[in-house]
């Protein structure tokens, strides 16, 4: 083995290990994401014990994931016990889209959550919907994890 081939081998091994480290860090980040949907709880607040206030969406999508439906069923069960309360469902988008489209997307996400709550017996007149588009991110960083936390619909008690 000449010196240059040895050096080449070293470089290959070295760059491979660099790639592994790079993977490791992105795995760490995607540990809180499935596809591009946020699955963690760092930004989540609670309406009551065990009742998370928000659900997360994939990019450009408003379909409810299994986890989102689970969260919304818990919200509905709690809402049925709190008959005197009304709620606003706030729809949000990430910063990687045009402003006007994101307003529409936020509205569509909030309605997806509202419709699901209604199928679990919550009257539509207890649920209002408001879209903030990309105007009110919860995480101001510019990376896929932050964007996944910002693509959300949040149920809040109406004042």
């Amino acid at each position, binding site marked *: 083995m000449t010196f240059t081939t040895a050096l080449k081998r070293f470089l290959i091994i070295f760059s491979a290990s660099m790639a592994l480290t790079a993977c490791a860090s992105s795995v760490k980040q995607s540990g809180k994401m499935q596809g591009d949907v946020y699955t963690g709880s760092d930004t989540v607040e609670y309406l009551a014990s065990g009742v998370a206030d928000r659900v997360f969406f994939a990019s*450009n999508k*408003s379909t409810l994931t299994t986890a989102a439906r689970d969260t919304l069923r818990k919200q509905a069960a709690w809402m049925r016990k709190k008959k005197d309360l009304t709620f606003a469902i706030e729809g949000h988008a990430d*910063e*990687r*889209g*045009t*402003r*006007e*489209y994101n*307003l*529409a*997307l936020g*509205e*569509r996400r*909030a*309605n*997806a959550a509202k*419709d699901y709550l209604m199928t679990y017996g919550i009257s539509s007149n207890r649920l209002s*919907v*408001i*879209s*903030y588009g990309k*105007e*009110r*991110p*919860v*995480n*101001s*960083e*510019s*990376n896929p994890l*932050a964007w996944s936390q910002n693509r959300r619909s949040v149920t809040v008690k109406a004042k």
Partner: protein
Amino acid sequence: MKKILFLIFYLFIFNNSVMAVIEVDITRGNLDPLPIAISPLHLESGSQDIKQGDKTIKNVGEKISQLIETNLRRSGLFNPLKKESFVQNPDIAHVKPRFEDWKLIKAQALVTGKVIVKEDKLRTEFRLWDVVAAKEIVALAFSTRPDNWRRVAHIISDKIYKRLTGEEGYFDSRIIYVSEAGLKTQRIKKLAIMDQDGANVKYLTLGNELVLTPRFSPKNQLVTYLSYFRNLPRVYLLDIETGVQEVVGDFPGMTFAPRFSPDGKKIIMSFAKDGNSDIYTMDLDSRVVEKITDHTSIDTSPSYSPDGKYISFNSDRSGLQQIYVMRSDGSNVKRITFGKGIYGTPVWSPRGDLIAFTRMHNGKFYIGVMRTDGSGERLLTENYYQEAPSWSPNGRVLIFYRETKSDSDGKGFSAKLWSIDLTGYNERLIETETDGSDPSWSSLMSK
């Protein structure tokens, strides 16, 4: 804003059959800007100072020339020459230029003039000379209020631009935009208006509620925008002369993405209901509301063609956001973009031949233009995030906003206004006191 009376005298009758020798080629990139000498406007003796707020302007002639110079340089089409090389005195040059002197410094055009401030009037006289052909090609005089000197400079700039390029200028125009400040998670946004060059900023709202996407009427002093007043996002109409605001229509949900029709009589916008956004118009006189699109997808960002016959908009009916064109009654919907990525915010050029848009592809945002059937796409600028182009009144320049990436602490975010020439050259930051977004260009004010 008060309307200002301008008296314009034509000093000499133009002879349009005499063609100027010099002409700026604006069809290609402006790689070779026209050398122009702007001789400082001569301040006549006995002229008074101008008091503007706490400032006193002693030599308004110099100020006007400087502003003309800035305007022409920023257009990218002209190269204003250094004053140090000028040989002839401004007052004499204005009467009879010694063309050999100006030829010597390679000027192809020469601007001369004189000003006087007297009895609360600013009187300005200016001439544009073709140095190569050794003759006068424009001569005009204006009389106006002294504090109006910036507009005098903008109007002169437009006259020069028009005579030398053959197209209308855009200097005597304004820009309405959203002024931004504060944390990204809790941004404070206000409506702001300024001259095209960034001067004379005025804030039209206080920042108590979120405001977005202001757009000028092409015909008058009305602006339409989205406000979250009382936490109900609705399209509003604002008269910037009187300050009177009103909600547009009585919709039981969010209305957004408003724009005027080219005659200024209608507002076109989206109305979101039950997770579906469609496009509607409202006639401002009769208040009649019409539904234009009816589709389960998101239809938004509508923009009329300048003849009012067509509407472009973006829709995700194909799965992802793409641009469509239809007749103004909603019939004959045709998709016009088929490239990779997503396309949005179509805006029809005031000349009618092009549509400007935002494209997102592979994590980058582009501002581009294409013909109204979607052919001939040209991407003018690529960046981390930019969107929402708006056309200059002459259809030569696009203004848009650009956001920077935040770092891992969420810091480093900014939103700024930028402009770029239709050719893709001459990209420029428009300086504003605060961050800015959602710019919309007015029509020419003096037209």
